């Protein structure tokens, strides 16, 4: 069953440049699902979330929660935020500084008119879930960043809302705490089974937490799929770039396949059905290096010769190589236990067909 349905939503900001923050977006979120909106800052993901919350007024479209419209531009209907039965976690938590943890968490229950006995039980339960049962009488100023984040989550969960809206809830925390809370949030989602939308610009967060991931670009959904689908098969070059796939080869089919880093060698059979120009994306960890004098391997992979190691960056378990291949800069990361190369070494690179993401006219055509 769909918990949330957004149809043809348009949100334009007033002003001279008339930025279209949300541009004709359709999404559906199933019960128990966590949909992650992923994208760089300014792509409209937070605006979309705030439209669902009713904190921004869209100009066109319709938003339905559990089958009931909460916003419908066609009949000029816009339900105020406080009547939408949502739970929201803000980027800076927005815990009210003048209220104790107890008062903060029971606030949504009071607002919904929940009886006192039931209220106390729910507050106790939800604080247990976020492992903060001992903090009830503290004021927000006396809490650490991680604790504030947990209380903000508890406050949003307490009334068992139809949908949870999480706006970059982990981005203000330091790296270690972020990893810990990410795992905790995932466990809570499994345990409580809430339906949610989660906004982030961090792809690891998105892949960890998202039942499905929607990558946004300039107010539109660029790709929507499971974490695995998005990671393995980025639908467009924009998604591939956003995911940090750094090696890009521009290919032309005039007299064999020429790339901007030299002639593409190896097993070129799978390209025969395609016409240039093509863009080929390869992750640094999918590229293998061999000594420059070696011949191109024949089966199931592509190869480029004439490379030279420019720099080798040791970063713990891996070595990141910066290569110059026919004037193009390419990147390779390998396990540090493998044969080491030194700056100046002549190298050849190879990568498997299945690791080459090939785009024609911004559409994924490989695999």
């Amino acid at each position, binding site marked *: 069953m769909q918990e949330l349905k957004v149809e043809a939503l348009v949100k334009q900001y007033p002003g001279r440049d008339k930025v279209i923050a949300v541009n004709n977006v359709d999404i559906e979120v199933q019960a128990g699902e966590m949909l992650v909106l992923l994208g760089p800052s300014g792509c409209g993901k937070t605006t979309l979330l705030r439209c669902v*919350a009713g904190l921004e007024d869209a100009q066109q479209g319709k938003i339905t929660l559990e089958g009931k419209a909460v916003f419908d531009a066609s009949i000029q*209907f*816009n339900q105020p935020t406080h009547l939408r039965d949502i739970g*929201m976690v*803000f980027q*800076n938590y927005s815990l009210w500084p003048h209220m104790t943890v107890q008062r903060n968490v029971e606030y949504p229950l009071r*607002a*919904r008119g929940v009886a006192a006995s039931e209220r106390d039980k729910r507050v106790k339960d939800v604080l247990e879930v976020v492992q903060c049962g001992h903090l009830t009488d503290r004021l927000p100023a006396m809490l650490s960043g991680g604790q504030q984040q947990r209380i903000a989550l508890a*406050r949003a969960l307490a009334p068992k809302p139809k949908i949870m809206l999480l706006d970059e809830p982990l981005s203000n925390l330091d790296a270690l705490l972020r990893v810990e809370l990410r795992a905790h949030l995932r466990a809570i989602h499994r345990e409580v089974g809430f339906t949610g939308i989660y906004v982030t610009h961090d792809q690891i967060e998105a892949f960890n937490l998202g039942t499905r991931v929607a990558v946004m670009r300039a107010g539109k959904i660029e790709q929507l799929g499971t974490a695995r689908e998005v990671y393995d098969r980025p639908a467009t070059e924009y998604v591939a770039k956003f995911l940090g796939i750094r090696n890009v080869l521009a290919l032309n089919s005039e007299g064999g396949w020429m790339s901007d880093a030299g002639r593409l060698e190896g097993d070129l059979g799978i390209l025969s059905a395609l016409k240039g120009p093509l863009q080929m994306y390869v992750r640094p960890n999918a590229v293998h290096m061999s000594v420059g004098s070696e011949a191109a391997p024949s089966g199931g992979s592509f190869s480029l010769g004439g490379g030279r190691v420019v720099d080798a960056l040791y970063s713990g378990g891996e070595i990141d190589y910066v290569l110059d291949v026919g004037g193009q800069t390419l990147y390779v990361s390998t396990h540090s236990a493998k044969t080491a190369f030194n700056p100046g070494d002549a190298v050849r690179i190879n990568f498997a067909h299945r690791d080459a993401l090939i785009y024609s006219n911004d559409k994924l055509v490989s695999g």
Partner: protein
Amino acid sequence: MRRQVAPQIGWLLIVIVVGFAVVWPIVQLQYRAFIDGGSAFTRMGELPRIGDTVRTTVILAFLSSALAVLVGTFLAWCASLLPRRVQKFGELAPLLPLIVPAVAAVTGWIFLLSPKVGYLNMMLRQLPLLSGLEEGPFDIYTVKWIVLITGMLLSSFVYVFVHTGLKNMGQELEAAAAACGASPVRILLTVTLPLLRPSIIFAAGVVFLLGMGQFTAPLLLGRTSRIDVLTTEMFHLTLRYPIDYGLGAALGFPILIAGFIVVMLQKLALGEQRRYVVVSARSKYDARTTRWWAAGVIGVYLLITTVLPLLALTYVSLSPFWSGSLVMTELTTRHWKSVLDNPVLVNAVWTSIKTSVIAIAILIPLGFGMAFALLQSTRIFKPIRMAIDFLATLPMAVPASLMGFGLLFAYTRPPIQIYGTAAVLVVTYITLMIGHATRLQFTTLVATGQEFLEASKACGGGALRSLLQILLPLCRKGIGATAALTFVLLFHEFSASLMVRSARTQVIGSVMYDVWTGGVYSEVAVLALIMVLVTVIGVMIAVWIGGSESLKKI
């Protein structure tokens, strides 16, 4: 959206009511200046010494504001050099002159510098070189001294803005310049002053307007040697019957135009938001160079602007009569008794308190609503927000004396004939202070942030619950401080009160003027000190509620 139209009606109502209170008196008055083919301007041209009056007004506006900018900026710089041990008090010290009502400070200065019996003059005449003089060496009843005293009174305002600007800037940016090899002078010229420019421009505009509409100092100091400015001419008109409102309007017209131009120039030079948002690069490291002489400068300033006038007031209030000689043995509390036994004076003090409190009870919620409206970027129609912004700015650009004259005109005739009642004072106070009450609470709301309100809505809290349980508790300090400071400003109020008072409705400022013209200087001193005392109590309450920062909001 259809459902968003209903709330607009409430905001529109506020705009209409406040708009009527603020705009109507001025428009109606100015209309009188231009009917009959502008004959009022002809009458203005025929006033005796009108050329001198205009010239004095212009001189006073330019020179006193220039002096205030120089002194205020220099003080702010000194405050930034204060050694840590005296930093806390030293930064607040230049604000203390604001606690002394202008009328009390000017009276104190008269006691010190009156040419014949001023205490300072008498003491200076004891010096060998000056012993031959019969009077002087200083004569406070001159344009020069009106400019000096006004400039000193206004310098505190400049200090507030520039000091805040310096504080917000922090030392990081200057340290960065030093790290780039810039000398202290180069840093001052290329980093500090350019970054302070918004603060200085804003402060200069504010004090220019205050200097242009200056009323207290010219009225009290100019009388003896027949020095007038446009506002005092207007006041003289209110003492004759029938009052020539057209002439008063003509006199006020140049001030109104100047105010309009200054506000426009400020907006052009700064942009609206710059007033509230300052580039912040605060550092926790305090690596300032400190100088003890800076504390000396601030000490001298405090002595001249506050301590000496207050000492003079206290001494005169306890002397049998003001003779200029310092005899400690004859001190008496007679004048305090006679003031406290005089029903007219005591009534006036009570009227001041009552009308101020009633005005504040209306001003605070009204200003809160208007400030809240200014923050709503989407939910309130833009024309309504622009109108509210205008109404919150206008009363600050029109001098209180001119506003008072307009209000006197508006409320002595139908449809709202309330002259002679306490209501006219309440309405006057609301009109004068609505901009103030809005701006102060606006900064509170901005500082509180919208997220807390959004969090409440997202938790299912409706408008009333969000207001009562989230917004008001969070803004409590700012609202309390605004109320206390507004009370202080209203209790100080002199110019407009003097215009709209009647025999039955006197406030402390207006009776003080009567006692002053009657020549009972000891009682003037008592009344001035009562003003200071009540102010100190009010400010202490404000600081207790809102912290020492609230003092800077005056």
